[in-house]
């Protein structure tokens, strides 16, 4: 264990959480990741809603963007995309 854990005086009282889960990357959980063909994407936003991680955000111009730091590779987005523009591919 190289990580230094804080002592009891350093932790906030009441056991309130000091860190956002944003700092905890779950992107290495799965073996696959979604590849989105943005040319065919209709910007319906469903993949954003159906992603169990909330890892797919919608950019300013309306396209989905996958946060690979968090994607667990479940494949729900590919399964549910109405125009089938998402394909699950193996992570390298």
């Amino acid at each position, binding site marked *: 264990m190289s990580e230094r854990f804080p002592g009891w005086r350093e*932790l906030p009282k009441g056991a309130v959480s000091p860190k956002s*889960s*944003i700092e905890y990357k779950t992107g290495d959980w799965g073996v696959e990741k979604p590849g989105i063909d943005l040319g065919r994407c209709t*910007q319906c*936003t*469903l993949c954003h809603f*159906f992603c*169990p*991680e909330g890892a797919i955000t919608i950019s300013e111009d309306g396209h989905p963007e996958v946060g690979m730091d968090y994607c667990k590779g*479940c494949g729900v987005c590919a399964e549910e995309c109405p125009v089938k523009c998402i394909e699950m591919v193996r992570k390298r």
Partner: protein
Amino acid sequence: MVSGLTLKEAARKPDGIAPGHRLCAGCDETVIARMILKATRGPTIATSATGCLEVATSIFPYTAWNLPWIHSAFENAAATASGIEAAWQAMRKKGKGPLAEYETVDIIAFAGDGGTYDIGLQALSGALERGHDFTYVLLDNEAYMNTGIQRSGGTPFAASTTTSPAGKVIPGKREWKKPIDEIVIAHGIPYVATLSAAWPLDVIRKARKAFEVEGPAFLHAIVPCTRGWRYPQEKTIEISRLAVQTCFFPLYECRFEEGRPVYKLSGPSAAIARRPESKKPVLEYLEMQGRFRHLFRPERRDDLIDSIQAWVDQNWQILLEKVG
């Protein structure tokens, strides 16, 4: 206001639950919870009963909650929410205290089926009877998934769980799913609705209505569980959809108006009511799930499948009669 909420608008609204949580790949719980949180009006405080959502979003020192959130125990989500609501009401009345200035606070209690049908039923009933202004969200994955898939009052008939295993003599759970919505509706609360993540806009609009009504609102979501129901993780939304298309879990709303419950079918279920031939056989729903595998192998149990279909048909018929 409600009708103005489009998917595109909701998609741009920041999520209430951040990524980096540790729910299983393909879990439906945050899917539905995130949709519900998209519908909040402003200041929001949430509480969760002990369960998958609570555990996996709050492993210290990390938290996925982008809004004030508290977990205290398993059986008391409704009681904890009652206290939060009472605190806000008192501060409003006194005109002092940290919540005094908020004209609305969307107070949400999330609980699973164990925390609602079973151990939390008393606290829920008490809070509904007292009429606190809060929204209770039942995330119904039909068993105690957090402790390893034990049967609950919400587990359907014949489902195999670790405490109602499909054995040589007994084919899974012997009891039918408890009619929790009817129990809740009997309290005469202003708003009850059922949800499936397969229809995001329906979820968001119902959640907004739940927040807007004064008094308790109850949202009951069907929440497929890849581990407990045993299906491929990418099928979560498809199973949520099939639950509705087979009328195993119809989508409807119930408002309490002039002293009586007024039922209204929601889009996909209303379409089935208009075109009964579009109702899919429950078989399609059952055969996708490993928890019902013993109904098909080693030998097909038509007797059990037929009784489940009969249960679905009867409840659907009863609901249609209520809708009128």
